[in-house]
């Protein structure tokens, strides 16, 4: 059978069919990976802002405990009720639910959908030369499940008793007993939302892996893939294999909450002075094991796409190949593999024995090696580069030291004898926020500035971008740097009044006054950080219509997503793609241009 005529014939039929797509099929129920990528991106950015706003209110409570929140206090009371926000003052319970939801929303509704699903969906098929994802309809369902999960999570704030308030980690028995008055409460909705989100991620992961395995264009061998694709490939495997145990655990916790089972509830439990009327015999540790079995690979899900993006942006803006491509690939595979056997370093203080503690400590130390290799390769890639300091590059450059700080500060947490002191303190919060906030989120900003011209055909304003960058960099550090100090001084997490309860006095040892005062500085910096996003938001929307027009390959990049019209048409490529070289052929000696696209045909040479 003649493949080309067959393809051409169905292409025509396809074309004719697609001209009839109405608004709903084209924009809402689309199966096109680019539309789905944008849907994910937009929804995720909305949740990112929502999660941020939750935090700004929490920070008020920490800096000015028991005082009414200005501007929004009255609104909170009206929307959420006087029992949690009477007089506009945030109650401890409300603080707890804001905290639990801030974490949940940021991790599962903002970062993962943005880094993995949004950028992955838009860019990966283009970068491998494919017409779409392997399973476009499953792709659509995956977005819809995510959206439904987000809706459930959002509306859980209005459930009787308020949103989940047992931490994003939802530890039993607190998760079951935090709200004894209502059976179907915010916690139940949280679990339901999680089931939907996990389903979405699983479907997405299957799609990504199958696409990367099966739909690479001819000539796109594994070792010619852009590093971003490798990163997304490993990330997809992490989601595929690590999420199901959490789904199982979520179902079990749902049953504990709704059907009176005791999967995670031990015997002899006494709640509020009364023995709990449960069968007992369960294990709180079991929840922790199953949660962190996902929880640890999850943090690599948060960082790997970011590393991939930074690699692409650095290569494009240094006009040099990435240093150590093979090392990067093997390292990212090693990280993926190792990330499954380090999880109990989140559980050092559960009373585990020395043997198992040593095992996890060892694997945790080992996993830092490939991470350092990746960071080193990215740093080395800068040497001798001809740098273009556009906004995308500034964010990508800042990612490197910020992630470095985040990674290095993780070492005392990975060693159990230092973790004894630092566990559950603000040091932990500082560590993981450094990795995700000035780490991943900076990489995501970089990605937005970098790929915006391909998606919209226009540049974002460089001036607004640079204001956004510098302000964000300064305030991110002002927010999170002091938290290391606070943590080392012993300030623990999840205190609605910023630790004022434990303030040291003349007669009692407690948190020093200067440590507590830092809460105010941090809070102000956090609000300033919020204000610093305004240039970005304006830029983002304004540039869609008014940005400077961009060509199809405005950054003169080598990877295949730039070798197609802007925006890419349905089916992505007007003619079949064939790949002839690696992804970073920049500044090759003897070439007329300083870059050679992956799919540019070989010049005929007489051999």
């Amino acid at each position: 059978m003649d493949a080309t005529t067959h393809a051409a014939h169905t292409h025509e039929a396809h074309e004719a069919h697609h001209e009839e797509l109405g608004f709903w099929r084209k924009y809402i129920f689309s199966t096109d990976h680019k539309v789905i990528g944008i849907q994910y991106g937009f929804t995720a950015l909305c949740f990112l802002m929502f999660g941020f706003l939750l935090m700004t209110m929490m920070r008020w409570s920490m800096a000015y405990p028991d005082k009414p929140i200005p501007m929004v206090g009255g609104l909170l009371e009206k929307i959420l009720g006087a029992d949690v926000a009477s007089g506009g003052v945030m109650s401890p319970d409300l603080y707890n639910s804001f905290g639990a939801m801030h974490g949940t929303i940021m991790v599962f509704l903002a970062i993962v959908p943005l880094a993995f699903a949004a950028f992955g969906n838009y860019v990966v098929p283009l970068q491998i030369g494919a017409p779409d994802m392997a399973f476009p309809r499953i792709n659509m369902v995956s977005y819809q499940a995510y959206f439904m999960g987000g809706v459930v999570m959002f509306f859980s704030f209005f459930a009787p008793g308020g949103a989940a308030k047992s931490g994003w980690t939802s530890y039993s028995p607190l998760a079951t007993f935090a709200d004894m008055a209502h059976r179907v409460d915010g916690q139940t909705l949280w679990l339901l939302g999680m089931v939907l989100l996990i389903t979405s991620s699983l479907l997405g992961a299957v799609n990504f892996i199958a696409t990367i395995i099966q739909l690479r264009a001819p000539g796109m061998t594994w070792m010619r893939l852009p590093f971003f694709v490798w990163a997304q490939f490993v990330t997809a495997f992490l989601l595929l294999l690590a999420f199901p145990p959490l789904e199982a655990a979520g179902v079990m916790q749902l049953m504990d909450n709704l059907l009176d089972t005791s999967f995670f509830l031990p015997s002899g439990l006494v709640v509020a002075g009364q023995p709990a009327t449960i069968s007992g015999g369960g294990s709180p540790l079991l929840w922790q094991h199953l949660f962190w079995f996902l929880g640890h690979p999850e943090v690599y899900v948060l960082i790997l796409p970011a590393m991939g993006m930074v690699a692409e942006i650095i290569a494009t803006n240094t006009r040099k190949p990435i240093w150590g491509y093979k090392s990067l690939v093997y390292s990212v595979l090693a990280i993926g593999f190792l990330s499954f056997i380090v999880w109990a370093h989140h559980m050092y203080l559960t009373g585990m024995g020395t043997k198992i503690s040593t095992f996890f400590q060892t694997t945790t130390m080992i996993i830092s090696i490939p991470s350092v290799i990746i960071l080193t390769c990215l740093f080395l890639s800068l040497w001798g580069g001809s740098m273009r300091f556009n906004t995308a590059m500034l964010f990508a450059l800042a990612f490197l030291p910020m992630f470095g700080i985040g990674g290095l500060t993780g070492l005392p947490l990975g060693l159990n004898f230092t973790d004894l002191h630092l566990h559950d303190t603000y040091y932990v919060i500082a560590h993981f926020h450094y990795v995700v906030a000035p780490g991943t989120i900076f990489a995501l900003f970089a990605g937005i500035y970098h790929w915006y011209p391909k998606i919209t055909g226009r540049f974002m304003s460089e001036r607004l971008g640079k204001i956004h960058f510098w302000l964000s960099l300064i305030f991110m550090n002002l927010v999170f740097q002091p938290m290391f100090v606070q943590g080392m001084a012993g300030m623990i997490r999840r205190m609605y009044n910023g630790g004022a309860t434990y303030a040291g006095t003349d007669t009692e040892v407690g948190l020093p006054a200067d440590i507590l005062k830092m809460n105010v500085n941090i809070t102000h910096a956090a609000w300033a950080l919020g204000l610093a996003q305004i240039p970005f938001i304006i830029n983002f929307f304004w540039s869609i219509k008014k940005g400077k027009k961009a060509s199809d390959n405005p950054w003169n990049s080598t990877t295949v997503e730039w070798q197609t019209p802007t925006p890419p048409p349905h089916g992505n490529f007007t003619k079949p793609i064939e790949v002839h070289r690696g992804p970073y052929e920049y500044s090759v000696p003897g070439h007329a241009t300083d870059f050679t696209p992956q799919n540019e045909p070989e010049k005929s040479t007489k051999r």
Partner: protein
Amino acid sequence: MEIPYTVEARRDTGLFNAKVGIWLFLASEVMLFGALFSAYILLRVGALPGDWPHGLLNIPIGTFNTAVLISSSVTVVLGWAALQAGNFARYRKCQAITLLCALGFLGIKSYEYREKFGHYEVWLNQPITVKHAGKDVQTDRLLGHFTHNGSHPLFWKTETLAEKKVEAIKFSPDPIHYSMTAREMAHAKKEAHGQPHAEIEIKTADIRRLSAFVPGHGPYFAIYFTLTALHALHVLGGAIVIFYIWANTKMWKTEPERYINRVEVSGLFWHFVDLVWIFLFPVLYLL
């Protein structure tokens, strides 16, 4: 550009897309059921001696259900082979049997569930004397059935006794309890065979706890119901997909290769469901 390899295999992997997809999905399902099995092991290992129910499930029925599922697995693969030979009528017959087996499995499971919901354990404040295997035994835990107003109620708990203002129940204790070893239980059952069921009256005031064999009874039934219900949902889901493909025969005429691929992919899911049961059955029923 059309998406390639939806029907024909890609040369270097030798696979078509949906096959890669279904195996990836099955990998995630392995982790899902694996996590539940891990939970089972942890809960069982952590149970106090005499506290882990065993020998309470109906083994002949479970064995029959296993045979039903295994049969459905062979009919699925025979159906696929028939399609490859171009024998569409044979494929339809095989899949019809598959679907009947699926329905049978689910029906038998429902019967088993219902049977459990009316079977009780009662914990007493003070031990009493009952006959186990002809001998007098002191125990404060009894298994058995009871009647209320002439019927066998389902789903009662300790609170239900107060709610319904029941002062005493007529309880028929079983000759066995799961705190015995398997050997002792087999012996006790043999001794009691043919004997009439003694009925005793238990006052509500003497009852510390009453529970049917429901998820809330304890970790064993919690994990039993979770594992088997999740598995049953997969049986149902798989059956629906197989039915959908079986009913929509148009594609066999227009794109036979694609149709065969769909049958194969849904068959792979079905075999996985059978695989899970192959482990579920001995672990829950026999061990």
